[in-house]
């Protein structure tokens, strides 16, 4: 028997170690595969598509020494504007809620610069031309004998958003074709721990479908031709750049420039008459992916939130958490209240099984007798016990359904806690960040499995689970077999292991849940005796 338990423990540890890796592999792809068929995908190597004149220089990731950079500071952002290509080369987001500023885009120059334009014909080489920067009107301007190219930025007050417009004036005497790319996002930061796997490109179409690209697919030069684009987003774990065009883009391009994805809109075969001006407007969201902030810019931007395959449940949990947060201004308290809510919801089920647990005590002599009689025949023993339960209309077990029902809630909560920016850096009691382990005693050195700090919450949780067992053993009497008792002793420690490096908010949830059920059990038991 002990051998089996040992095996169980080893295997579980293997599962714990391997599971996150598998999960990371499975999750992003799952979303990709389902929508593959809806997309007409044309894979074109970019170099072939661009004029030979710019081919050599266009992937160069360096600025000439003559480049001028101007600085724009608002309540939300610090922007660096570069005159070469007339684009935004650095974006810093001021995130006062989490008291941390993040440089979401760095070193975005030439073709990778945000709002840079590169095309055919009269627009060829535009990403390398020097523009004039007008800081007061936040405008880039380039004028030559054929065209006038003007790019204007206007910030939105108290929002993480900006409106941009690109104006092209045809100064020639002939009709011109406009075929070009506009870069809207590139070089997105991945400074958070293991953040590279969260980098994702979402293309949201007007028919409501979303195409998601992650990992290596973002590093292939690619053109995805499909119009009716509502918006595209380049995201890391907590922040995103979302661009919504007001023109009909033919598709989205992805370019690998210095091993960083650069994305933007493709415009093909637009006509412009002599002397005419053509405007291309793009509305941006650049900021933390909070539901409220996203909604301020555009209600459809909330679709950029991705909490894995249970996103809808995660969003419900998040909205409950936010509701409590709006009253108590602390996410730890919100988690406590959410736990109580879920337990109240499951109360009829818990009550029923606790009731029959008590009745079981009266049957204890019968069970003991059956056990003695069928010592050598476990199948018969189990059958007899089940028959006994049925005869006396009791059943100590809660059933598989409540457990199966709780599983998605638990996974969704895990995703909410570890991926929603709202919970990032939110403190509770001694916990600095509910999305991370609580790290009560910092050690200063690192131990395998345990990391560089001792976490208190998982230890408290082990204590609570042992307590719960003691209570349930005293309510049901000693109906457990030797094996069950052994497993019961190992279980809290196993759980401690599993929970040890999970977000402290999740451990808090499980701890409260355990305490609530065991106190329910305790008081019901007390009432009857």
């Amino acid at each position: 028997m002990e051998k089996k338990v040992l095996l169980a423990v080893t295997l579980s540890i293997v599962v714990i170690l391997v599971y996150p890796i598998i999960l990371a592999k499975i999750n992003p792809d799952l979303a990709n595969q389902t929508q593959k068929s809806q997309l007409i995908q044309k894979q074109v190597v970019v170099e072939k598509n661009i004029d030979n004149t710019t081919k050599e220089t266009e992937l160069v990731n360096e600025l000439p020494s003559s480049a001028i950079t101007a600085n724009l500071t608002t309540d939300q952002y610090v922007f660096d504007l570069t005159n070469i290509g007339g684009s935004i080369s650095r974006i810093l987001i001021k995130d006062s809620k989490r008291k941390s500023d993040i440089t979401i885009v760095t070193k975005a120059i030439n073709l990778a610069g945000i709002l840079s334009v590169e095309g055919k014909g009269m627009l060829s080489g535009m990403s390398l031309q020097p523009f004039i920067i007008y800081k007061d009107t936040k405008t880039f301007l380039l004028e030559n004998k054929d065209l006038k190219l003007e790019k204007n930025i206007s910030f939105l007050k108290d929002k993480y958003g900006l409106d941009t417009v690109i104006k092209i004036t045809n100064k020639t005497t002939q009709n011109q074709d406009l075929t070009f790319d506009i870069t809207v996002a590139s070089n997105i930061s991945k400074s958070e721990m293991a953040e590279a796997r969260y980098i994702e490109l979402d293309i949201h179409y007007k028919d409501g479908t979303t195409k998601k690209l992650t990992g290596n697919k973002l590093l292939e030069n690619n053109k995805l031709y499909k119009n009716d684009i509502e918006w595209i987003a380049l995201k890391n774990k907590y922040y995103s750049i979302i661009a919504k065009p007001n023109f009909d883009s033919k598709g989205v391009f992805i370019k690998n420039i210095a091993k960083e994805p650069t994305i933007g809109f493709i415009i093909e075969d637009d006509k412009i008459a002599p002397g005419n001006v053509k405007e291309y407007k793009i509305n941006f969201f650049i900021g933390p992916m909070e539901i409220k902030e996203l909604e301020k810019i555009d209600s459809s931007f909330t679709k950029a939130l991705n909490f894995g395959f249970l996103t809808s449940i995660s969003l419900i949990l998040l909205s409950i958490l936010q509701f409590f947060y709006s009253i108590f201004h602390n996410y730890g308290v919100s988690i406590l209240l959410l736990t109580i809510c879920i337990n109240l919801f499951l109360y009829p089920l818990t009550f029923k099984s606790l009731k029959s647990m008590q009745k079981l005590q009266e049957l204890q002599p019968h069970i003991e007798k059956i056990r003695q009689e069928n010592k050598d025949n476990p199948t018969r023993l189990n059958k007899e016990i089940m028959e006994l339960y049925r005869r006396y209309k009791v059943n100590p077990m809660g059933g598989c359904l409540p457990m199966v029902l709780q599983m998605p809630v638990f996974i969704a909560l895990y995703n909410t806690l570890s991926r929603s920016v709202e919970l990032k850096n939110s403190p509770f009691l001694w916990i600095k960040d509910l999305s991370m382990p609580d790290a009560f005693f910092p050690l200063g050195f690192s131990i395998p499995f345990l990391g560089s700090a001792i976490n208190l919450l998982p230890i408290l949780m082990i204590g609570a689970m042992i307590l719960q067992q003691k209570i349930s053993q005293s309510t049901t009497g000693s109906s457990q077999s030797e094996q069950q008792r052994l497993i019961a002793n190992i279980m809290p420690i196993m759980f401690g292991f599993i929970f040890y490096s999970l977000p402290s908010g999740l451990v808090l949830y499980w701890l409260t849940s355990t305490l609530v059920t065991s106190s329910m059990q305790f008081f019901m038991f007390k009432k009857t005796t």
Partner: protein
Amino acid sequence: MFLKNIVKNSIIFYHNYISSLMLCQCRFYPSCSQYTLVAVEDKGVVLGLLKGLERIMRCNPFSKGGYDPYK
């Protein structure tokens, strides 16, 4: 056949190691996982898993539970 083996082995794994660690809460004998295992063997992966799901739906505190072998 390959898929069937994967499904069967993961049920066996769940039954032997996970559910025993979680203190199985099943109200029936044989338990939901054993029941599903037999069902997958008998009806194939899709129908078998569906039958198992149906059993799990029945396995709640409002059901009587008890001896309920796969038929």
